[in-house]
């Protein structure tokens, strides 16, 4: 058995260990990398940046903890930018473990907003955000397609109360908001087929401007919707989140994670190249 044959029959746990070691070493060795931004992410950032104080946006946080690595940074970056600009945010989730994600994000963002910060040369004073005045969290209802359809008719059809069982009509933020007509845009952070449901039942029916934040696994699948104009922006995976953080001048988990991604990708590429070199050399030897 030559070295390449031995490589082909290597116990996969050595591969696991090597990948884990590379990631841990890169994490410990702190350095920053520069990320270039793409047009589809810039579209979302510019859209939010051009909104005015008091405008409404709808954030649909449709992911479970299994996708929080990629989508939480997006939620944080967008929500913080919107809150700093004093936009009104309506949160909702179509995921059954999503309410916990929204609550966690709101808790962390509330703490961050209390601090005075400067983003892209603009100084923002620390502020408190109040449920019912600065934001509303509608909560969760099952069957996303039907819920999205009903939101376009009237939020109160399937959300007579918010997550905390407070009637929507008694929330000052939603006093004059009936449906998507009063919303400037919907940004959907999704880890499954809910993103397609938003395109079909939300944007397709009610023509509300829609942007998506999706996991890397789904990343390449939504470019046709971008090309057809059904969505105006797309953030795919941790790279999309890192690009948004760069645009928002908000160095967070995503940008920190990209440097570890970099070396992990190099390791996987090296494994693939090594395996292919071994494969071709073995084939040549077999032919001889």
């Amino acid at each position, binding site marked *: 058995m030559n070295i390449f044959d031995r490589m082909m029959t290597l116990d996969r746990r050595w591969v696991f260990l090597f990948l884990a070691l590379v990631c841990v070493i890169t994490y410990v060795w702190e350095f920053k990398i520069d990320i270039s931004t793409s047009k589809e992410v810039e579209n979302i950032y510019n859209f939010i940046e051009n909104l005015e104080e008091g405008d409404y946006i709808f954030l649909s946080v449709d992911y479970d903890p299994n996708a929080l690595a990629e989508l939480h940074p997006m939620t944080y970056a967008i929500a913080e930018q919107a809150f700093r600009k004093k936009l009104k945010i309506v949160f909702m989730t179509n995921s059954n473990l999503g309410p916990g994600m929204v609550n966690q994000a709101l808790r962390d963002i509330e703490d961050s907003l209390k601090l005075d910060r400067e983003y892209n040369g603009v100084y923002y004073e620390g502020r408190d955000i109040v449920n019912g005045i600065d934001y509303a969290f509608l909560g969760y209802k*099952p069957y996303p397609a*039907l819920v999205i359809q009903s939101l376009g008719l009237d939020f109160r059809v399937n959300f007579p*109360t918010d997550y905390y*069982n407070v009637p929507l009509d008694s929330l000052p933020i939603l006093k004059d908001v009936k449906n998507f007509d009063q919303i400037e845009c919907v940004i959907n952070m999704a880890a499954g087929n809910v993103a397609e449901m938003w395109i079909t039942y939300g944007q397709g029916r009610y023509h509300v401007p829609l942007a998506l934040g999706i996991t890397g696994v789904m990343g390449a699948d939504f470019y046709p919707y971008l090309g057809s104009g059904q969505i105006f922006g797309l953030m795919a995976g941790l790279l999309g989140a890192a690009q948004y953080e760069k645009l928002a001048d908000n160095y967070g988990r995503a940008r920190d994670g990209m440097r570890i991604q970099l070396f992990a990708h190099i390791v996987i590429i090296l494994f693939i190249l090594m395996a292919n070199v071994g494969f071709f050399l073995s084939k040549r030897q077999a032919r001889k």
Partner: protein
Amino acid sequence: MELMQVDTFLWTTLGAFLTLCTFSFLYKDNPFYKFAEHAVVGVSAGYFAIILWHTGLQPKLFNQLRDGDWFFLWLNASGAHYIIPAILGIMMWTRFSQKLSWVSRWPIAMYMGIAAGLAVPQEMKARVIEQMYSAMYNTLGWGSFFGTGFYDSTSGLSQIIIFIGTLSALFYFFFSKEHTGFFKGVSRFGLWILMIGFGASFGYTVMGRISLFVQRIQFLGDWTRVVWDDRAGALYMLFWVLTFGIFAVMAIYEIVSFARRKQATS
């Protein structure tokens, strides 16, 4: 830096312990992994049950019947008509009964009818008509044929490649006709386009999967950083050592067993 509260640290330590239990599966299936797996199934089911009650049934059903009386079967409530979907929902529960499972077909049929009826025009519009419109309109309505160069994806050349690529890939999926001659050539080109698309998906998938592991490293790193903070104290250090210690002992035991097995066989 504000010190993490003791109770918060203990909950985080529980999370770190369960994280390491789950990672232990990479070596082999073991009781620690099984424990974490079954714990999360039970806890998430319980979490979801409460969410369904408080944010589902409570506002949509109980609140509507709140002003009614139980001895009138809530028929005197202002939202009395909501009893009908409640009854239909309860009919769904007969699914588990051999004799009465036919009763559950009514609410299932209602759901299927509404969902299918919603899907027909809207899926057709969003997935077929809009995509076809975009493919044809962009192909005919470009500003400049070469744009700013080969890499310009809005140029006429790129739009024609997209149009031909889309058609060719659709040709590949048409299995009602044998792929011969011109048809074979076009579907072959479509297959190439599909392979490039799947390669792009694979590249993104690798990034997606790695980022999940990256976040776990960040979580464990933050937890470790709290311990190494000078002011954290002996209690935090003790829990950190205990958590890592369990897995370190397991790892050492496995290495020693492996070495002994190798010695015995050689």
